[in-house]
């Protein structure tokens, strides 16, 4: 690292994933750090312009709700990649698979099992029964192989010591995987071969893996080649781009509710060649819009009679209905207990320190430190409704206190995690920016974690908010396969592994 784009690079007292405390690249990071450091600001601008062209020509966009016009925006991707070493990844991968395994078992236990974990008092029954995600309409509805969390997105972060922590689980309709694939494709166009010898694990097989997992979850009667489709709410959904993308990747039909019909508890899709039976629906519609007979009667997005067909076992809906109870943030603190209970293993990845506010003592202690903690509504996702104590106004804190006192079951508080940082391109040079990671986990014949995941980056200086809906960007995430060319920076102190 010379005095190039990294000159004056400030660690800011945070855990930087690329640069160690001694100012040299951490193990595995050397080639990328050196390559970027050697660029001129003009080079960087050139690459940035190329990236924008590529993203635009590929039509990679995302949608921000709540803005009257022009809500479709080009996807923000930072050029500096986020790199995860093979040994770090191997630990994370096993920890994520373990977690999703436990969540699948928990949901099976609740919906079609004996509710043993409740009977044994490991998870409080009342907590489950008062979860808005506990879907009674899915009670006793079985799912082939218990693959309820067929696609999971588990949000993880690295704290001040570099350890990975789980911040939240997304077990309903996690989105973002299309950006993982598009970021990679875009990087390949922009950096054309510069890192071919690093040994970066591929993500291109995601579509095949997803299709295999969906087919694996088909009802047994579906035969050897089940028919799969992707069910989207439609073009106005913020993730429509992804729905279309995934259907294309898998080579299956993208349908809306009105394209599906239920006849005698069997689902079929309207095609130009007539009705065609459907075996597996990868739905990207929330539970409550799936079927107007049993859920929101005003829903025009869903398919009347679908739930009865699912119950009859003629079709599989993925992810399963009712997963929200397992990613309820007030249930999340019990996931480590679920891992111990169902798997008899110690959790490989810890939760972030969390306070359950329905407990009088924990609530009192948390409210005493209201301005130091992060406050999250239990049933939301995407960063909506979150209040970050240290950055909140007195009025916001007072309002939060009232809200929590009125509805302690509805909120959790977490310690602020000093999110790790990764060098990011800002104004023609590199500066550290906070990141998180959403790896994607598939439950098929086995549990498969796609190498890397979606790294989101808070591009505003000092910001901890990484959601793209709230001014965040993204990074291509490289998982090294450990076979890469010798890395001269590996001589740096081993504290960098910080496991």
């Amino acid at each position: 690292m010379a005095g190039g784009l990294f000159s004056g690079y400030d660690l800011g007292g945070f855990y930087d994933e690329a640069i160690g405390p001694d100012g040299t690249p951490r193990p595995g990071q050397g080639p990328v750090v050196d390559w970027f450091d050697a660029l001129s600001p003009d080079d960087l601008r050139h690459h940035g312009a190329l990236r924008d062209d590529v993203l635009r020509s590929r039509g990679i966009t995302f949608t921000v709700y709540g803005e009257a016009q022009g809500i479709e925006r080009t996807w923000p991707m930072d050029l500096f990649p986020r790199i995860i070493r093979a040994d770090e990844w191997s630990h994370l991968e096993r920890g994520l698979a373990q977690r999703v395994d436990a969540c699948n078992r928990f949901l099976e236990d609740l919906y079609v099992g004996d509710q043993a974990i409740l009977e044994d008092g490991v998870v409080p029954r009342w907590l489950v029964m008062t979860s808005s995600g506990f879907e009674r309409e899915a009670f006793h509805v079985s799912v082939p192989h218990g693959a309820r969390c067929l696609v999971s997105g588990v949000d993880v972060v690295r704290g001040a010591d570099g350890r990975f922590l789980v911040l939240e689980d997304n077990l309903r309709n996690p989105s973002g995987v299309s950006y993982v694939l598009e970021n990679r494709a875009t990087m390949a166009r922009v950096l054309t071969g510069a890192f071919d010898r690093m040994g970066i694990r591929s993500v291109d097989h995601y579509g095949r893996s997803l299709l295999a997992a969906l087919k694996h979850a088909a009802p047994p009667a579906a035969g050897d080649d089940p028919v799969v489709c992707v069910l989207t709410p439609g073009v106005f959904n913020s993730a429509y781009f992804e729905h279309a993308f995934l259907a294309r990747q898998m080579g299956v039909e993208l349908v809306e509710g009105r394209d599906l019909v239920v006849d005698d508890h069997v689902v079929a899709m309207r095609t130009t060649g007539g009705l065609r039976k459907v075996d597996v629906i990868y739905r990207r519609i929330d539970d409550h819009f799936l079927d107007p007979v049993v859920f929101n009667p005003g829903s025009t997005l869903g398919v009347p009679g679908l739930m009865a067909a699912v119950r009859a076992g003629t079709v599989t809906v993925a992810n399963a209905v009712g997963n929200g109870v397992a990613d309820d943030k007030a249930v999340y603190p019990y996931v480590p207990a679920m891992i111990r209970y169902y798997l008899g293993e110690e959790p490989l990845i810890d939760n972030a320190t969390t306070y359950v506010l329905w407990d009088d003592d924990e609530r009192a202690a948390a409210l005493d430190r209201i301005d130091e903690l992060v406050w999250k509504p239990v049933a939301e996702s995407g960063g909506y409704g979150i209040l970050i104590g240290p950055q909140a106004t007195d009025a916001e804190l007072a309002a939060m206190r009232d809200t929590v006192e009125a509805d302690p079951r509805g909120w959790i508080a977490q310690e602020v995690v000093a999110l790790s940082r990764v060098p990011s391109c800002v104004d023609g040079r590199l500066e550290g920016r906070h990141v998180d990671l959403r790896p994607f986990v598939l439950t098929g014949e086995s549990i498969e974690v796609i190498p890397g995941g979606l790294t989101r980056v808070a591009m505003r200086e000092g910001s901890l908010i990484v959601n793209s809906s709230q001014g965040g960007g993204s990074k291509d995430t490289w998982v090294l396969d450990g076979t890469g060319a010798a890395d001269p920076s590996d001589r740096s102190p081993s504290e960098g592994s910080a496991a």
Partner: protein
Amino acid sequence: MRLDIRNRTLYAYDDWVAESQNEVRLAPLTDGRQHLVAYRLSVAPSSRSLAFTDYWGTRVDAFGVREPHLSLEIVAEAAVETAGARPRPEAIGWDGLSEQEFRDRHDEYLARTPHADWGPAVADAAADARADDLVSTVVGVHDLVRERMAYETGSTHIGIDVDRVLAEGHGVCQDFAHLAVAMCRSLGVPARYVSGYLFTSSDRTGENVDGDLVNVQTHAWFEAAVPGHGWMALDPTNGREVGVRHVKIGHGRDYDDVPPIRGAVSGSSTAEVETDVEIRRMDPSQQATVLAPPRTHPAPEPSTAQAQQQQQQ
């Protein structure tokens, strides 16, 4: 008491309907107080239904009609054996409500739900019913609903919040039940809504029937959970305990968990709905008349039925 029930609902549409998908909850359940002897659902145009038991323990028949139709007829026939009211428990204190074991089983019956979402008016009224012991409190809620509400046939208030129901001071059985449920919950007493039938000549008075045949509507009442006893069932519409003339279909947090019929119809046609319910008191030795084909086994003697019920407790 042995009762045969025939519930016929007819939807007459003003235009062709290409498709309708439905769920029916009209089968009486079997519990400690009643026993379902037989049940049959028929639909015209004919359709194959999927029967299952839902989370609340209610039998559901789900079916779809996917041929153009101008009317949909749903006939649910049931033969049921009922027993009298459970004895009212002695005074029971409030402490049991906060015990973990009790809370675990009953907290879901404490939350506000769309039809039992109360405001200060209902909470204030409920506070008047609060007594030192829970049993008197639940009875007090029942009495208060009767006192404050007048029975008025016709429009149901389903969809109107309970504060307004209370302010207007009149309604039908569903409104009475929801109001009582909301009052109980506002006091911290778990309560649930019950859908069923009442064998009576008048919903309002619940008075006994001279003849053996009545034409009624579906009925509703409420149950409140009392630690150490179980569920106390009271019918505020006619001011009596739930007894031998009540036939329970099922329960839930409110009406939405046990709607007799719910469905989705394609297109924009509007329907006229006609429901008639016929309840016939049977000689216990008689075979069910409304059910075809006739059952091959004779109906159980009351004593047998009693024994079976106790077995299920």
